[in-house]
């Protein structure tokens, strides 16, 4: 992998790290949600520092050049990330609906606690 590409990778990783830290400082991202980005930056730094890794894997998997392999991996990971974000947005939509309904029912004077239909598909880790 050419030196310029390794430097670019390193810069990208550093910029990503700075962006995450900046958001944390401003209370604009939960620490839980920043794990993915910190881990990704560290992996990018490792690939930039030890290009032999990318070279070995590109040989094994039949890529013409290590940079192709790196691009492929980044695109792959982003696909997965975008999909899991979609799933999370769906859950959030559902939760907003749920809350809106609960609030509206409160106005009607229904004080009974919520039924079993909620919570079943929620992310219990947050």
């Amino acid at each position: 992998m050419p030196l310029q590409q390794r430097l670019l990778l390193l810069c990208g990783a550093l910029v990503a790290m700075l962006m995450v830290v900046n958001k944390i400082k401003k209370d604009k991202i939960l620490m839980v949600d920043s794990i993915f980005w910190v881990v990704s930056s560290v992996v990018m730094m490792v690939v930039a520092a030890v290009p032999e890794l990318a070279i070995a894997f590109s040989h094994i998997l039949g890529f013409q050049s290590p940079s192709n392999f790196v691009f492929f991996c980044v695109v792959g990971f982003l696909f997965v990330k975008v999909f899991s974000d979609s799933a999370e947005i769906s859950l959030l939509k559902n939760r907003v609906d749920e809350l809106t309904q609960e609030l509206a029912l409160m106005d009607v004077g229904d004080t009974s606690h919520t039924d079993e239909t909620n919570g079943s598909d929620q992310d219990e880790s947050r």
Partner: protein
Amino acid sequence: MKVLAVIPAYNEEECLNDTLAKLAATCPDIDYVVVNDGSKDSTGAIVAGLGSSGINLAINTGLASAFRTGMKYAYRNDYDAVVQFDADGQHLPEYIPAMAQVLEQEDADIVIASRFLDGTRSPEGPRGMGSKLISSLIAATTGTRITDPTSGMRMYNRSMIEQFAKRFDFAPEPDTVALVLRRGGKVVEIPAEMQDRQGGESYLNITSIITYMSRTCLSILLFQWFR
């Protein structure tokens, strides 16, 4: 000193009543509030019957959010201290008065009921490894050795109550203990026994354990310096 026990409850129908009965019998002068975190079982019905000592969240929001609901309640009702207390019967209410005394006498921000302080036992198994790792990270970054950072029985003073009620991403977890220590706050441990959970199932599964450990370690090692 007005002390409130905040008891987050998620699917705790099996032991919640016992826990509350023991708490009321042992510490009659301590108020409590149970926060039902959108349970799927009948915890909601139990909590609905508690009057002003019960809060039902409409959806499941997670332990930190449920606990912070209790902290907002404590802040608005002018409590001087809050003890984080498990609904599953692990925590013994006998220690609450001792914790309150230490909090007041030593002017501490956080008092932790530690299972390992007296040295007769040490953390074991995978859980213990996590606990030891967190303990050494806190010691390395703050210079203070916390023997039982993952103990869920902690007491917080008024200024901590306000921070829990108002600050962003502030969880009742070890990384908050580290943050308080680094900011010059005072954290004191007292020796305590704990029981095994008396029924029901734990909040934790593999994914949430990995997320928990990554969040805690990253927070102590990296984000602590920027928050």
